[in-house]
């Protein structure tokens, strides 16, 4: 998969919130089980995606954000 600006921005945004180095963040690692993301961090990621990409994400997208790649998929669905 070709890495786009959006991919990189989502990765950096998530890395910042869960406090890991973006370079070492495996985009398929489970954010909860492998990286210790809690529910408030997940909400923060959702709110940051909305702000960064000027989109509105419904609540039912929240459980889908399990990895960086899944977050990228969610973001791409809403970014025009």
């Amino acid at each position, binding site marked *: 998969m070709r890495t786009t600006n959006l991919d990189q921005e989502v990765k950096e945004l998530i890395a910042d919130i869960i406090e890991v180095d973006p370079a070492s963040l495996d985009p398929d690692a489970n954010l909860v089980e492998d990286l210790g993301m809690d*529910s*408030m961090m997940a*909400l*923060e990621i*959702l*709110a940051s995606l909305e*702000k960064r990409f000027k989109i509105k994400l419904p*609540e039912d997208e*929240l459980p889908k954000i399990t990895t960086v790649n899944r977050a990228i998929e969610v973001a791409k669905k809403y970014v025009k």
Partner: protein
Amino acid sequence: MSNRLGAVPSTLDFEQIKRIIPQRFPFLMVDRVVEIEPGVRVVGLKNLTGNEWFYQGHFPKKAITPGAMICEAIAQTGIVFFSLSQPDSGDVTYLLGSLKMRFLEPVWPGDQMRIEVTPIKVMSKAGILNAVVTVDNRTVAKGEFALAAKDNEAL
């Protein structure tokens, strides 16, 4: 929209506030709610007198309102916002998840804090909210905080 007060009122007095938030003396930090737009904003007031318990120790020679108590007032106004914006969320306790706050000026005995809370992202059981605290139209503190409603059975 239903909540613990029935129809959403336009203001709340001290007794109505106590029906929404669980904190009590010496930790109840909202005296009155003067503006309510469910899901849009809530404005609370806290009058600080020289008799507040925390001035005994903060500080003995010069009473200054602790930033932690300003944060508590913000969080409690956030609970009011959340409770009035959501359908009855049941038997829950609201916990602070995160807080990013800047304190711009000291708050003194005799000041009235006006605490305005607006949403950044609100969901059924959690929310990120924005807060601006003013005294006499001067901003004394501002920032973001996150609240989560936890079912009491799960705590």
